[in-house]
């Protein structure tokens, strides 16, 4: 006795689709990820930590962390301001601005890197002025931060805009009528309302900032121990036939990725819970 199945729910179709999906996920995602760790630990734990404590590797880890540490706050502030501007004010070109935010997603990172190289390099408009004032941007850490900021700038704004649009401005209006100053309004009303979306945006920004390769490769100059970030370092090591060291560094990136996924799942769960509560609230009215 089988219960009547819903439309399109034939066991054969259902199970073959699920198996195909599982198969591809396994060979495309899971096995490669596991093999990184397998390669990294091939000669045991001691070698693994030896590889990671190479001075150049340590420097790459440090530089990557600094880049992320500078990029995330910049894009956090920028993203909030941008989302606020396009959801709380009416102005000509508002829709156009929302589209512009996506440019970094649409442009290949290598192209972005080249653009910055042209602009800030010693022959570029801004680069010449910088050169005269003895400021090194390209082939140094400021350039790396600059392109990373460019590549990751949509994440926070993209998360906030739909949420802030949906929430509307009546909470903020209520706070102002009750006498709140701008800062009180932001800290006590707006920020708690967008908290989880903001955290989600920051996690994505951070993941991308740590892992960015293309744009950084163009502007960094790949100077070992000076302008090498972790992703670039992995490639350098691999090209030097130090594959085990390369995989050790790569395993760090993979570890950060896994951590990001876990955090992302948690924040998504929190957001969903908030959202369901809100819907309940609306359903009651």
């Amino acid at each position, binding site marked *: 006795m089988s219960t009547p199945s819903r439309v399109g729910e034939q066991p054969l179709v259902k199970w073959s689709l699920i198996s195909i999906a599982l198969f591809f996920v396994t060979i495309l995602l899971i096995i490669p990820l596991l093999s990184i760790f397998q390669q990294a630990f091939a000669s045991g734990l001691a070698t693994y930590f030896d590889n990671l404590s190479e001075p150049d590797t340590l420097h790459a880890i440090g530089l990557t962390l600094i880049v992320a540490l500078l990029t995330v706050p910049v894009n956090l502030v920028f993203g909030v301001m941008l989302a606020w501007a396009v959801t709380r004010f009416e102005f000509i070109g508002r829709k156009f601005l929302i589209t512009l935010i996506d440019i970094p997603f649409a442009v290949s990172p290598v192209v972005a890197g080249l653009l910055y190289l042209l602009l800030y390099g010693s022959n570029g408009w801004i680069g010449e002025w910088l050169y005269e004032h003895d400021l090194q941007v390209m082939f140094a850490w400021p350039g790396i931060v600059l392109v990373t900021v460019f590549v990751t700038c949509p994440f926070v704004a993209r998360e906030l805009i739909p949420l802030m649009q949906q929430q509307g401005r009546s*909470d903020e*209006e209520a706070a102002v009528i009750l006498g709140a100053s701008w800062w009180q309004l932001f800290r006590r009303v707006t920020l708690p309302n967008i908290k989880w979306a903001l955290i989600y945006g920051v996690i994505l920004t951070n993941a991308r900032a740590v892992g960015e390769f293309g744009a950084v490769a163009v502007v960094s100059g790949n100077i070992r121990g000076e302008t090498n970030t972790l992703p670039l370092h992995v490639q350098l090591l691999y090209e030097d036939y130090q594959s085990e060291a390369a995989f050790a560094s790569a395993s760090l990136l993979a570890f950060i990725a896994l951590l990001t996924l876990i955090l992302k799942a948690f924040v998504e769960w929190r957001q969903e819970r908030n959202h369901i509560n809100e819907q*309940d609230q609306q359903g009651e009215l």
Partner: protein
Amino acid sequence: MSIRLDNISKQFGKFEALSPLSLDINNGEMIGLLGPSGSGKTTLLRIIAGLENANTGTIHFGDHDVTNVHVRERRVGFVFQNYALFRHMTVADNVAFGLQVMERALRPSPAEMSKRVKQLLEIVQLGHLAARYPEQLSGGQKQRIALARALATKPEVLLLDEPFGALDAKVRKDLRRWLRNLHDELGFTSVFVTHDQDEALELSDRVVVMSNGKIEQVDSPVELYAHPNSRFVFDFFGNVNQFKANWNNKHWQNGNAFILPPVAEATQKNGYLYVRSHELSLSKKANSQASLPCKVVAINPVGAEVRVELSPIGWDTTELWEAKLTHQVLNEQSFSRGDEVYATPQVGYFFADGVRGEPIILRWPFLAPGHLMFDI
């Protein structure tokens, strides 16, 4: 606190949300802004609050010109249509918000603050919910918390945007009465927006009827009912039947229906005759002063009255007609669905085409000149 609006207008781009209008609201009055959506009533409320700036005109609270005073400094209480409770704060924190954000010099001490919050929650009869979050409250409870929050800073002006719009009928009725009592007790000046005429009539000292960014009429509920001064107001208050009257030198004609107006001159024109549904009688045959053949479409007993829906036979109306009869009358006449009946107005309100202002009130049956007895 009295409120004086003078020559206020508002444009959104090319759309004229409010044509220049003026309005005086007395101290302690409760005013209902009534109109269909898009009539500008919410915009007017937001201008009084300071959430929008008017393009022209001035606003005075008492003798104080507040036209250019920021929302934050206007110190009005405002209740939003969706309540706009802060979802991450408890009920007590929501109510305390207005006190917590005060300048340090004016801010009450924590002890005073919690005393005031407790007091406010008692006023709205929800003291037991202080530790709850907004999402755990029902619509009516949220409404009352929003009100308590608005009253925390002791505003002298309370503004409410569709205060009962999202509540079910029973809760709405209770809350209405409760709000009216609270208003009388605390003595602030209230302005509320609504699209529900019952609500406006029940709550307000005076009703401001608006359409298309203009004020149509400002009057007490009783006056408004007795002397609506335009077709719009009449239409808006509903329960009214419309007869497009074409004067043909003998009587008003519309298809094969006619009505003979009792007054000469002023009524011998084209126009519209409005008949309230409880001022309409039905009979099985026509008479010499009115012949409005109709078919009975539905008979709905509602409480003490019976609503009879009528579809015109051989004449035009935009909507079905309705007659409200007592059970007694209906029993005597014993109509049933599908019957053909003739409607006769007892009282009619005539708006002549091209003439503004109050309608001419007419009564039937009347003694026609040269007759010694009623012809009906």
